Structure formats: structure tokens, C-alpha cells
């Protein structure tokens, strides 16, 4: 794999991790808002 391909893969993995974190936070917030 070229170095640019490697960088692209690493950055996409970081993005997927950030997305998963935000998605989980969103779900937890929705649950707390419903419980109010």
C-alpha cells in the first residue's frame, strides 16, 4: 500500500471512531431527555 493510501486508511479509521463516539453520545442524550 502506498504511503498516501496508508494515510487515507488511518484518517478514515479515526473518522469512524469519532462518528461512533458521537453516535453513542447522541443516543445517550436522547435517552436522558426522554427520562426527564
Amino acid at each position, binding site marked *: 500500500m502506498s504511503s*498516501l*493510501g496508508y494515510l*487515507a486508511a488511518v484518517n478514515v479509521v479515526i473518522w469512524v471512531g469519532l*462518528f461512533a463516539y*458521537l453516535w453513542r453520545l*447522541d443516543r445517550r*442524550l436522547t435517552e436522558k*431527555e426522554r427520562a*426527564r
Partner: protein
Amino acid sequence: MKALKLMLLPYMGAVIAAAFLWPEAAKGFIGESSRIVFFHVPCAWTSTLAFVVAAGYSLAYLVRRNPWHDDIAAAAVRIGLLFGVLTLVTGSLFANIMWGSWWNWDPRESSYLLLVFLYAAYLFLRSAVEDPERRPRIAAAYALFAAVLMPFLTFVAPRITASLHPQTVINPQGKILMDTPTRAVFFGALAGFSGLFLWMLSLEARTARLGRERRNSPAV
């Protein structure tokens, strides 16, 4: 809304991959350093957008005194600062490759650093005012003051003297000097970062609202 958020996953994934793999590196730059434009400029755009949103909601708070508007304004400043710092970091990475130093006191670097300090002061001000009635009012007034200075620091001050910074998208010729793949990825990244900002703003403001309501509710 849920579908839009879900769409952001493949959309941003594709934009990030394309930023490295689709357009050719721009001529006149060392190695692949020009690819920073797909991250650095969207970060700067997002922080500016966040500060404009903060000004809008601060004005709305001063008019209507709705605490939800204050929550959104404060959340927008926090996220704007995050993207502002990312702008400085990505700019510094580029500066080290192109100009041989992480920091050069270039007019654009310096004015942007001042902008970050200006909005960091907003957070210090919020934490310094203990009275929950006065805090949102003073913070909103400061956010409006900062918004008046922002265009000078972002658009005017860096153009007064010669700069090492590459020509910006808003240039004297009024033309976007990019080939088609670069332009597609660049504007795709601007749209993606804007979507990400709106999502993060909603999460941050909703978290602030839950915290405020918990503090205001009588203890059990």
C-alpha cells in the same frame, strides 16, 4: 435527522479518502503538503461559522432571554475554539514543511492566534461570572463584541501586509484557482465539516441544557 447523521459516516469517509487519493498534489508545494487544504481550510471555515452562530444566538438571548439560546451560543464558541485550534495545528504542520518552522509570526498566523485568544477569553469570562443571571447577559454582550472584531482578524488584518500564506480561496482575482477534482473534494469537505459542526453543536448544547436543568431542579 437520524438518516442525515448516518449519511455523514460514508460521506466524510469518502471525502477523507478522496483528499489523499483523488486530486494530484498542487504544483509549487513541497511533496504532498498541499493536501492540508482539505482539512485546514474546512477547520477555519467551521470555526468562523461557529463564531457567527454564537453571535446570532447571543443576540437572540439578549432580545428574548431564552436560556436555550445561551446554551447554543456557549456551545458554538466551545466548538469554534476546538476547530480554531485545529486550524492552527494543521497550519503549523504545513508551515514546518513549506517554510521550515512550526511558527513564523506570519500576519495570518498571528491574526488567527489573536482570534483564538479572543474567543478563549469568552470562556474565561463565563467561568469568572458566578451569578447565573448575569453570566449569560455578559457573555452574550462579549460574543457580539468579538463578532465585530472577527472579520478584521480573519479577512482584513492578514491582507494588510505581505504574507507567506498561500493564496486564499477568496483572492484578489475573484477566481477559485483549483482543478476539478481538487474543487470537488474541497467543497465536499466544507459541506461535510459544516454537517459535523451542526451535529456537534446539537450534542454540546443539549448536554449544557441537561446540566442547567439538573442544577435548577430542586434536590431530591
